[in-house]
């Protein structure tokens, strides 16, 4: 038992592939916890970043710089009254948020945080991700239907049409990335290197192909990779019902869309699902086009010095964040009203710095590096989500459909065909 646990540490397979149940469960637990923390952090970050974009401060009261605000929110949501509308379909109403949460969380089974840092590596990895994340729409549709109310019903009709439409463009964009795993090209676009020869749908395989071909797929067959990436990154915003495609929950039209009738804990499940889905689709984008866990220039900047330099990044980023927090603590007004807040912020900074120091220890820093780069790339996409929300008005339903079917779909198709043509010749 113990040997099977320790022996995995030196394995170069994912726990799923190695058939190591203990580590697989541990990974699942870690992903679950990490995702919950990420959603909480995302909640705080979104409010802060959006607030600063909108010339205001955002949460400032609960904890230093509102750091504890998400926890306060979570507590509030947990103890809120759970309202079920009269004549609602009780069973379905109860099940709907669970479906969305399950769909959003299950996708993370195949997300590769590193060459071995995934629960399992499926042969159909990307297909599995797309399929399971598309199950989320079932939860949204049933939620709207079960509420027995007009606004949620319109919200779910909108969302089912929207998500099914954008899945098509999304799928085509993904296919063109998958195609790149096997295509090297010989002409101007040829990379001149040998890859694995056959393509793959496995998430880890796709990242490895990018390493082998020495190029992120976003820049492969320039600009075809970029076009596919662009199509995907528009479609993924629509898939997750975020601004400017947040029609299913357009608050100015449908009050809150499909979750109008939800409150308290059930509502927070939708919230959790939405943010997990955002992270999930961002992970797909990062894996397919931005080299997944690969650090910048893994082929060009090789050698012990570079390896050391890049492996110091995680530790130093945490140290930097800690220093930022300490600096803010020092700049807090000297007043006894702010005493606890100052101490809290300083403590938070110290904690971050401590983590940063810990990550500088050699065995840890090599293991953590992949996860760090992956998370950093996903974070960029999450920032984009917030940025979109601060900038764009909302699309109208017919315009949304037009964008999906008349712009994204043909673009994705054209990119796919061009990729195939360029890759073969």
């Amino acid at each position, binding site marked *: 038992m113990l040997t099977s646990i320790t022996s995995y540490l030196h394995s170069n397979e994912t726990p799923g592939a190695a058939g190591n149940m203990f580590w697989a469960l541990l990974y699942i637990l870690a992903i679950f916890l990490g995702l919950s923390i990420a959603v909480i952090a995302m909640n705080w970050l979104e409010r802060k970043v*959006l607030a600063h*974009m*909108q*010339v*205001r401060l955002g949460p400032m009261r609960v904890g230093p710089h509102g750091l504890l605000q998400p926890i306060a929110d979570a507590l509030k949501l947990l103890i809120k009254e759970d309202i079920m509308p009269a004549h609602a379909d009780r069973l379905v109403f109860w099940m709907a948020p669970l479906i969305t949460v399950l769909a959003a969380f299950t996708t993370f089974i195949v997300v590769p945080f590193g060459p071995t840092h995934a629960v399992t590596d499926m042969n159909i990895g990307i297909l599995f991700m797309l399929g399971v994340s598309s199950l989320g729409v079932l939860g949204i549709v049933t939620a709207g239907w079960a509420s027995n109310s*007009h*606004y949620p019903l*319109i919200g779910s*009709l*909108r969302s089912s049409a929207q998500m099914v439409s954008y899945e098509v463009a999304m799928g085509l964009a993904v296919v063109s990335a998958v195609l790149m795993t096997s295509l090297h090209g010989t002409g101007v676009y040829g990379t001149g290197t040998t890859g694995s020869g056959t393509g793959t749908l496995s998430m880890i395989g796709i990242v490895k192909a990018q390493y082998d071909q020495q190029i992120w797929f976003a820049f492969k067959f320039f600009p075809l990779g970029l076009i596919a990436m662009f199509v995907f990154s528009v479609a993924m915003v629509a898939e997750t019902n975020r*601004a*400017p495609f*947040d*029609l299913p929950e*357009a*608050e*100015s*039209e*449908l*009050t809150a869309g499909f979750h109008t009738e939800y409150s308290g804990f059930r509502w927070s499940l939708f919230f959790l699902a939405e943010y997990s889905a955002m992270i999930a689709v961002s992970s797909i984008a990062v894996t397919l086009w931005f080299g997944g866990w690969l650090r910048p220039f893994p082929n060009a900047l090789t050698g012990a010095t570079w390896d050391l330099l890049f492996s110091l990044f995680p530790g130093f980023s945490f140290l930097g964040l800690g220093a930022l927090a300490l600096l803010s603590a020092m700049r807090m007004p000297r007043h006894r009203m702010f005493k606890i807040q100052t101490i809290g912020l300083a403590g938070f900074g110290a904690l971050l710095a401590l983590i940063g120091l810990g990550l500088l220890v050699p065995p840890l820093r090599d293991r953590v590096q992949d996860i760090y780069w992956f998370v950093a790339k996903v974070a960029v996409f999450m920032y984009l989500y917030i940025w979109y*929300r*601060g*900038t*764009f*008005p*909302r*699309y*109208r*339903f*017919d*315009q949304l459909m037009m964008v999906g079917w008349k712009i994204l779909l043909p673009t994705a198709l054209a990119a796919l065909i061009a990729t195939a043509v360029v890759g073969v010749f």
Partner: protein
Amino acid sequence: MSEASKYLSQLQVGEGEQTFLDSNELIINMGPQHPATHGVLRVILKLDGEKVLGTECVIGYLHRGVEKIAENRTYTMFNPYVDRMDYVAAVSNGLGYCQAVERLLNIEAPPRANYIRVILTELNRISSHQLWLGTHALDIGAITPLFYTFRDREEILKIFEKYCGARLTTHAFRIGGCQYETYEGFERDVKSFCNFVAPKIEEYEELLTTNRIWVERTKGVGVLSAAGCKALGVTGPVLRASGVKWDIRKAQPYANYSEFDFEIPTRQSGDTYDRYMVRMAEMRQSLRIIRQAVERIPEGPIMAKVPKVIKPPPGEVYHSIEAPKGELGYFIVSDGSTQPYRLRVRPPSFVNLQALDLMVRGQLVADVIAVIGTLDIVLGEVDR
């Protein structure tokens, strides 16, 4: 007659062109508690899927009987009440009322008072338009402009507060002139505000005017032709966006608007985008008026000779001004006593709201929100 009947609006349940599924006709109750109805407006929508077949507005949730109150208050006592109608443009309301009573008394406010009035009213027009822009953009889904406009509107409210102590329901004017002399540094404040807000207006435009989604959401939405506007009595920026160059400040100048050099911005197509552009241009024109007024403001008294007890001679008078939302009129019947015998307010929001049904027929639900926003209604004024 048939031309007019084209603009008749009423909800005819049980008929209408049907496109996708007959069975899918949906009656939706938007409001009175709804985030996008700007207060307590209730719109009953008859939908075919997402397409609007017809609407019916149910109003009166904020009815306070202002006209009845007026009959039981003296002319002076009623003055603060008008601020509570269009509470985002209280100064304009006050100006209209004071001038109507002055007209009934056949007196004229002194020039300095008129200048102060013009400055404050135009500032108020800018603040009203800013509030409109923020909420309208919010309705369409752009959340950021709201905070920009509120930040800049704050500067106007600060000037109001310094001038008369109130920020929103200012009660700035009195019958016969102004109660307060300008405070020390008023001109400087106003001038610095003009310099402050001019680039900010550019900033709003930068966010929205060329934003593709904004243009797609507003172009061709809620089109109201000039004929439709006239038939439905729609005034203000909505009328000007349909290509009618009509502004009471130019057509029948009141206060001393005839002394200023400004233009009436118009656009041709009469859709939501044009109304947005007209209002943006109006903000700039208001700045232009304020700049001139603050340069030329004369010295002198700020109150005309008004009797202590205001007892207008018997008679009736209608006076209207160009409020930020359109023609704001006061029809006052005096019986020679200290109280108005009858006071009728012609609220621009109320009349403009009537056009909603015509503007949204055949459009989508999302457009209803855009059109309610673009009509710039204030429920305090609709319901009075």
